């Protein structure tokens, strides 16, 4: 069936079966590969996108359920929080293999949107759904604090 999605502010028509995860539509049909497949069961967070501003696991979001929403992917993030997060990630060299980091960044933006000055406990609670097998967690925590500081400055 034909479905119209709004992704990063643009209308995109896709032909997809109902029940197809948004993740695979983004990756295979729309060539937006910054959003990653990690588990397919919402247990790792690599596929995190924003739907109406909320971090959401695209691997368990049916494409038809995303039709009337505003979808934002790593390719489309912008604004003060997103820029601070990306800059802090670079200033602190958070990444190693980098595969999970799109999802980490999408979640971090969601956290700072809700809690501009998070504590370590806030960060741990909010980010615990995003797995990183390289275990870059130490730097993720530091980069979120750093980004919070950048926004205050």
């Amino acid at each position, binding site marked *: 069936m034909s479905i119209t999605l709004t992704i990063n502010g643009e209308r995109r028509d896709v032909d997809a079966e109902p029940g197809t995860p948004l993740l695979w539509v983004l990756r295979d049909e729309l060539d937006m590969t910054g959003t990653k497949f*990690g588990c397919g069961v919402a247990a790792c967070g690599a596929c995190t996108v924003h739907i109406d501003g909320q971090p959401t696991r695209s691997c368990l979001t049916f494409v038809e359920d995303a039709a009337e929403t505003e979808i934002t992917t790593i390719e489309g993030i912008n604004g003060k929080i997103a820029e601070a997060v990306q800059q802090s990630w670079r200033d602190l060299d958070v990444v*190693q*293999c980098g595969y999970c980091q799109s999802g980490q*960044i999408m979640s971090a933006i969601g956290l700072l949107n809700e809690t501009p000055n998070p504590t370590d406990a806030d960060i741990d609670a909010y980010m615990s759904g995003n797995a*990183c097998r390289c*275990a870059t967690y130490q*730097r993720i925590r530091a980069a979120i604090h750093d980004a919070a500081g950048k926004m205050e400055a």
Partner: protein
Amino acid sequence: MTFQATRRSFLAGAAASSAALVVGFTPAGVLAGGHSGAQFNPFVKIGTDGTVSVIIKHFEMGQGTTTGLATLVAEELDADWETLAIEFAPSDNERYANLAFGAQGTGGSTAIANSYMQYRKAGAAARAVLVEAAAKEWGVDAGSITVENGVLRSGDKSAPLGAMAAAAGKLTPPAEPVLKSADAFKLIGKEDLRRKDSHAKTNGTAQFAIDVKVPGMVYAVILRSPRFGGMLTSFDASGAADVAGFIEAKALPNGAGVAVFGKNTWAAIQAREAITAEWDLANAESRSTDQMIADHVALLDEPEFQARKDSDIAATGSIVDASAKTVEAEFHFPNLAHAPMETLNCVIEPTANGVRVHDGSQFPGITHPTIAGVLQLQADQVEINTVYAGGSFGRRATATSDYQVEAALAFQLLGGQTPVKLVWTREDDLAGGYYRPMAVHRVRVGLDDKNTLTGWDHRIAAKSIIKGTPFEGALVEDGIDHTSVEGVSDSHYAIPAFSVGLSDFQSPMPVLWWRAVGHTHTAYAMEVMVDMAAEAAGADPVEFRLGLLSGGDKDQQRLSGVLKLAAEKSGWGEALPEGRGRGVAVHKSFNSYVAEVVEVSTQDGAVKIEKVTCAVDCGTAVNPDVIKAQMEGGIGFGIGAVMRDAITLTDGEVDQSNFPDYEPLRINDIGAIEVHIVPSSEAPTGVGEPGTPPSGPALANAIHAATGQRVTKLPMTANGIEFV
């Protein structure tokens, strides 16, 4: 392993863009320069647009190789770090070999160690011809020219490196270029040098193999045997007919499964769910984990091999028996999956006269000829396009090129003209074998009435990683797979009577190196056992270890050095509140020395990991911040596994399905990690793996200090330990 170095693969890779100057080595190891690199493969390239590129012969799985190799060239070339570009080398065993292996590949924490002089020389040679060209152009003495941040200067004249590249391409580089002395380094050892791959990995543009899409590509997943070693007898794909996007299903010619093709990944996954298959399981693994553990234990009574040549197992046992005190323990280590975040995948597409393989390729030196063999092509008909790998931890480095061969077979099944992307799901990954081998150790240690060690009887049973692979000639000696005993048989502790028995466990389950290989279990057994011996001796764990390392040889000195540093930085010996404890472990692996102190607290009996303090001596620290990141990651990888990870079998079938059953370390699991690097001018050694081995035993020893519980069977959560 031999294949011809190919002009085509060179053209497809390093020289695809037009170059004004390339500098590298000929197959004979002689420095060479020029415009095209036709006779050699370059390490440094300056394009006609002035872009300076470093050609990276290793793959990047997150360990920081691209940054490290670029640093070595940029240091000697005095290039501008910000604009320096990186390119992955084509697959070429002869010219881009890992000097530690003799073939192209990444592993054993060797990337910087083997490249340290090679890449510096290439950078220095490029600098020399650029300076010579500028001297001619400007009519000045070469000695008057300085190079800084990619700019040549003499008096009032200046030019970027790229401006002299064309002229420099006509010159012959010096055979032995002058290298900087360590006190002149500007980039090597620079604390705040930023990674080369950070930008692309924070905006979604970094390309991994799973992101590759070529025109006309179809997607494949494979239905595999439910038990290791099973062979396909028949399958029924009629149920998949209704799956939208399903193309077809075909049996793999090697009997290993059914290739299921779809128009997209989801279609292939859905279609596979609807296909049933019958398997011949006569030769398959059918045991359950409990039985496999018991079978390991039974092998300990009569070890097949003695891994320390000058000692005798029976004699050591007698010495231990006759000692004033005896300490003994049996250690159980489960199978572990690597579970890199990017699941295994590979794209193969046809080219004008062969194929191109897109892969996060860890062992191109093996994969290239293996793919050629499967597809009955000549080596020069195969190209490998190496892209970023979303983690590996050893999984992408198999002797069989397992997943690349699956992709090649799937490609062949469609007639060899349709591009195919093979994708593994997380379920495939966890059930797919190539695990860290299960291992069981039995250790008996004696102490005399002065609390001095008398003897150490150590026995190990594990499936050999190496036997039956092409690595057997290099890594198995007198029947002993070194990777089964490394970290025990070569311990630097002064132990008077020391025997190490080894027995190989047999199973069709494929096993593989997993970040730090044998050290992942040997360090745990050694360092928990030393802690138990210290306890029996009534000694402080740090002091007891220092006593065993006081012989004065260089290894003992460097182990003592990191041990003292970690103890000092962690506040070792300072009083802790009730319910808290510190544990220590020190271990040498991949020629680096690492000590770690873990501090835990307890709440209602549950353990919280508050802090890890690490000290590392890895020789010259090329990229200190990358080294710290590798220690942080290595510690997290090791601790996550010992806390709660295991691959187990019931009647031969893997019990774990996806991350909820094989829970990776999470951000809330470790409070803080602090890394201290020992200043050193020794040659650089490994950093990707050495952080992992001490982390598990340091945690175990901390739990003992806090709770009195000794954990000798892993994972901890399955053996009485609860974490907050």
